[in-house]
């Protein structure tokens, strides 16, 4: 468990020092007025693709002894990804933060984001409530 705490700490530091947690940076991104966020997300994806391929090819097991595998996401009708994605996107632009940065911002001292998190929890709960009636 300590490992996950340490990794989380590193993640929180990266989000803060790279300003990924900044509403201003997200605005720059959605206005296509700076390369920065695209550079970060792009290189993150590239790094993840390459390192994942290397890990798989090497056949190495996890420290816990398991075979490394990422479960495939159930496609369904694809609606949940499109619609859920759009809804999240709207929220992302409004709050200027996705879940990770929301928590990093609290650590930064932007205490009002506790309200954003509470609201996010409410949103997740409402999803759970509406789920049986929503298209997947």
């Amino acid at each position, binding site marked *: *468990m300590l490992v*996950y*705490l340490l*990794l*989380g*700490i*590193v*993640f*929180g530091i*990266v989000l*803060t*020092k790279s300003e990924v*947690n900044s*509403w*201003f940076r997200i*605005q*720059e991104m*959605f*206005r296509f*007025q*700076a390369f920065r966020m695209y*550079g*970060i997300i792009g*290189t*993150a994806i*590239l790094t993840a693709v390459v390192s*994942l391929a290397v*890990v798989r090819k090497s056949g190495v097991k*996890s420290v816990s002894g398991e075979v*490394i595998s*990422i479960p495939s996401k159930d496609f369904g009708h694809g609606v*949940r990804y*499109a619609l859920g*994605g*759009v809804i*999240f*996107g709207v*929220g*992302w*632009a*409004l*709050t*200027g933060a*996705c*879940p*990770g940065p*929301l928590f990093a*911002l609290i*650590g*930064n001292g932007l205490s009002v984001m506790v*309200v*954003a998190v509470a*609201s*996010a*929890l409410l*949103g*997740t709960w*409402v*999803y759970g409530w509406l789920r049986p009636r*929503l298209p997947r």
Partner: protein
Amino acid sequence: MTAWFAQTWPWYVAGPIIGLFVPALLLTGNKVFGVSSNLRHLCSAFLPSKLEYFRYDWKQTGLWNLVFLVGIVIGGFIGSHWGTPHDIAISSQTKATLQSLGIHDFSGVAPKELFSWPALLTLRGFVSVVVGGFFVGFGTAYAGGCTSGHAISGLADFQLPSLIAVVGFFAGGLAATYLILPRLL
């Protein structure tokens, strides 16, 4: 002379570090990097409910991630106290656009006009924090992931649902930026 890592980190350093969380978590315990599921775990742990979506053993599936989440908060604290405080160097175009929309506080990580306790009592502050937060929580639950889970982990694994989700993220973000913000701010 401050060390480079005490100042703002360049994109080509931050990006690869973020990307490395995918193999790091897989190698540690076959965990898939994805922060938004924590919202579900928190609901499951603290909001007693008969809803099927929250009835699972959150300690078994999610404890590692909740610990990771606590780490993010601590890391946020460390990161914000490391190095000299400075204004975020956003593009002058964006600054000008935001100024024309009524934003004038560029001193922090987010404008006080929208993100402060007093601002919560204004429409634009309320929408940014409460409505925005709600959409983040609802949207990530519906889509089954956020930028870490879909854009990074999902795309790294070439999963089509994640590509659709990411397109959705941008469509939503662009709609909010160009259609909602000008009317809200």
